[in-house]
């Protein structure tokens, strides 16, 4: 992945596949970083991430890991890890890159914005080139850019003042999870105890989102895009005055994209998905044979 290389981050992937299958996959997907073969799941076991919900007798499925990613620093110490509970909900490469660089990169797709010179509010989809696929998590970012001196509020907040709220709705099949908020700073005002909790400058609310199968119905061409309704309510104040609380309704159009899927067991690529160009059936048979032999050994 060129962006990882360009940022000095080495990339490695490990699975229980044979070297030959990994070579075919790397060629089909144009992958240049190492795909490491752990055919008896020895490393997977040593790490303690063997999937134990699958029974040992379930050949060839037994032996896979709980899938996830570790991010390590220059000394090889883990600085972050991503292990979603659902197999389809993997982190996108962009999220891993963001974590590695400690920053949120701008989305490649245009966002929508509202506001003025005091407070600008923008919403954009970050990751995957601004497209949504069935499964990989993306981040919907609501970015507030405040004029110097202004702040907006987090909870808890006294009666009569408006805390910042963001809600996102989309069509059936679209999921928005709990947002990650940056930490607030305390604002002490004479006569007010406890202090207020505020954000200033550029404030990013990061909402993990994903699409399930409803947006990609089997055997049909999916829609080319969906619309998300992002409602943002906030109140901006400086040390002397407060602006009138505002509600912005942003409509964000997100293109849907297909994925590369194995052509296997009659599951072939449908709709916008494309089949990975390798003989998955042959490698699956080899995997089956190898796992059966190890089990009987």
């Amino acid at each position: 992945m060129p962006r990882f290389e360009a940022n000095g981050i080495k990339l490695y992937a490990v699975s229980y596949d044979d070297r030959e299958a990994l070579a075919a996959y790397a060629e089909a997907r144009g992958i240049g970083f190492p795909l490491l073969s752990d055919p008896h799941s020895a490393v997977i076991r040593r790490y303690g991430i063997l999937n134990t919900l699958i029974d040992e007798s379930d050949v060839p499925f037994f032996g896979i890991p709980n899938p996830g990613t570790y991010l390590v620093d220059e000394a090889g110490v883990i600085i972050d890890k991503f292990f979603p509970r659902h197999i389809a909900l993997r982190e996108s490469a962009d999220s891993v890159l963001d974590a590695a660089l400690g920053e949120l990169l701008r989305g490649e797709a245009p966002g929508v914005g509202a506001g003025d010179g005091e407070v600008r509010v923008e919403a954009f989809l970050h990751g995957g080139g601004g497209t949504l696929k069935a499964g990989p998590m993306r981040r919907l970012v609501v970015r507030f850019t405040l004029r110097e001196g202004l702040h907006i509020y987090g909870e808890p907040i006294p009666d009569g003042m408006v805390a910042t709220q963001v809600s996102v709705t989309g069509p059936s099949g679209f999921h928005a999870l709990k947002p990650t908020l940056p930490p607030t700073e305390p604002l002490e005002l004479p006569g007010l105890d406890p202090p207020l909790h505020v954000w200033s400058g550029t404030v990013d609310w990061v909402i993990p989102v994903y699409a399930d199968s409803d947006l990609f119905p089997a055997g049909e061409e999916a829609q080319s895009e969906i619309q998300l309704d992002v409602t943002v309510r906030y109140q901006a104040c400086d040390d002397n005055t407060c602006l009138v609380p505002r509600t912005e309704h942003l409509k964000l159009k997100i293109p849907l994209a297909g994925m590369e899927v194995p052509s296997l067991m009659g599951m072939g690529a449908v709709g916008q998905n494309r089949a990975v160009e390798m003989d998955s059936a042959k490698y699956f048979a080899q995997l089956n044979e190898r796992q059966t032999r190890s089990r009987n050994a």
Partner: protein
Amino acid sequence: MSQDERRDAFGFVGPLPASHRLRQIPGPDLATGPEIGERLPDFDLVDHTGRRVSLHADRGNSKAAVVFFRSAVW
């Protein structure tokens, strides 16, 4: 089999019923291996080109992302 039988708790539809043993979703006690703050355990594996790779030696002084995935085949 209806679409509903094939849809799991997260909303994904698969070729097998959601209740099938191969479609079980781990609970919150999902084992995720070494923790943040620990050194990533070293390993020695052959990559897809046949090159032997010792993780920390190969990584040198660079940051790295190590991805454990299900399979390139299925």
